[in-house]
């Protein structure tokens, strides 16, 4: 049975047009259907502006869909909740709390019945899991971008959610840090086997981590392409992946889906394909 099920989900936003009282409706997502199994790692790949963040916000419950249904464990979702832990693109750490306190806040929120000792232990466990044990008492401004995102990952995992949602978590990081964090996430995931939905614009990242990749057609009115299965054992390594025939096939299909229907004069799409090809 699917743990998370989206059927016929659409979302439009009102954009202010010219003149008073006039607003234009822009359809961001149209008829999104998605079914995610327990312990599955799903990546949704799309170009910027295609409504990726809107999709993850809908699943998180931070915004409401205009139509369609989103079921978690067979029950319609009703607003945000810690059963869908979110790791935001901009980390969203509270700058006035230390690393420990940021993660502790999540642990405390989801497990109010735990003893003080258990809460501390759980907090420390997840901070150690992302290799930040030495930075426990630091505040976010003392940390690098990569370390901040590690804290955000620890906080997301510490909620012990049914589904972990990642919104382009590594896109603000430099290439080297991104690579390290991707492999670390691959390691953590193969140990914990959480259900994960991750949004990204990086095909290699998707192939490294995902069981299934969906592409999001260019907006407005974006919808999901067919499922692309990445058939390789976890945890994967970058080098090993580039040689695997199944991965090369998945990458070809993803690229084809992403560039399909995009006019060649669209410079943005051209850049997209080029940067991802090598």
């Amino acid at each position, binding site marked *: 049975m699917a743990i998370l099920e989206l059927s016929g989900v659409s979302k439009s936003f009102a954009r202010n047009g010219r003149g008073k009282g006039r607003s234009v409706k822009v359809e961001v997502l149209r008829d999104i259907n998605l079914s995610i199994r327990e312990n599955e790692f799903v990546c949704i790949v799309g170009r910027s502006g295609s409504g990726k963040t809107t999709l993850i916000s809908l699943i*998180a419950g*931070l915004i409401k869909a205009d139509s369609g249904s989103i079921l978690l464990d067979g029950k319609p979702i009703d*607003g*945000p*909740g*810690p059963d*869908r*832990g*979110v790791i*935001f693109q*901009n980390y*969203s750490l*509270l*700058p*006035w*709390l230390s690393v420990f306190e940021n993660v502790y*806040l*999540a642990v405390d*929120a*989801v497990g109010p019945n735990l003893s003080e000792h258990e809460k501390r232990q759980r907090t420390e466990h997840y901070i150690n899991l992302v290799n930040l044990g030495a930075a426990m008492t630091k505040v976010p*401004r003392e940390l690098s971008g990569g370390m901040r995102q590690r804290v955000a990952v620890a906080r997301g995992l510490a*909620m012990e959610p049914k589904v972990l949602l990642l919104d382009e978590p590594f896109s603000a990081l430099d290439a080297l840090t991104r690579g390290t964090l991707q492999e670390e996430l691959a390691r953590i995931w193969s140990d914990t086997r959480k259900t994960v939905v991750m949004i990204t614009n990086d095909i290699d990242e998707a192939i490294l981590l995902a069981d299934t990749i969906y592409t999001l057609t260019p907006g407005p009115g974006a919808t999901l392409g067919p499922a692309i299965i990445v058939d390789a054992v976890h945890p994967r390594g970058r080098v090993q992946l580039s040689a695997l025939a199944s991965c090369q096939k998945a990458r070809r299909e993803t690229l084809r889906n992403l560039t399909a229907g995009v006019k060649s004069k669209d410079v943005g799409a051209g850049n997209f394909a080029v940067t991802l090809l090598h």
Partner: protein
Amino acid sequence: MEKRIDSGAMILPLLGIGLMLFIWTAISLKVAPDLPSPLKTWQESQQYILNPFFKDGEMNQGILRFAFLSLVRVAKGFFLAIAIGTPLGFLLGLSAKFNQAFDPVIQVLRPISPLAWLPLGLVIFKQSEPAALFTIAICAMWPTVINTAMGVRSIGTEYLNVGRVLKLSPMKTLRKIMIPATLPYMFTGYRLSLGMAWLVIVAAEMLTGSPGLGGFLWQEYNSLVYSHILLSVLAIGLIGFTLDRLMGVVERRFKTA
């Protein structure tokens, strides 16, 4: 850190002060003969400065004694102002409806001079001390109200989303997210409110005749000892400057968060 002493940084302010003393002397010599010169001011005031803690009756005390009395009064009024102003600012920032209802009232009350509030305070409280505190509080609270409201309105959605995802209770959201996020704005408001409270103190003491720098100033005007007016004016300025600097230090501590 390398620290070079710029000769201009020392000399220019001294030059400015010297020029002010010159203009002051010139006015006292040529324009207003009743105005004591800087030298005469010093001669007639030195006992208040050199012996700042003497007390010879209610209205004849050393300058620091008067300053202390005024500061206590300002502190009371200021804490009253921020105790009312901070929650009020939070309500205005949180609720658009509350803001719509009370913004016009606030905009009208805000520009009213302390000189106008004080008689009203006397009518309400019948005594000079509570009336003075009322005046200080009601004049000084607006910067706190407005800055706190602005701070609450500019809390990043990303922080609020963290609270929503974790389903924090309203009290916990307030304690862990809203108050810390608003703190820098609140302290900017507090600094401006303290400056305002210090401005009001003189007016309040002058009209109520309470002992303090303002009361002393007014009494010496009535007894024609003009040098003591200048002494009070300078003391008020220096203390106001010091208060602002101290609050600035506190404010910066919270800005880094």
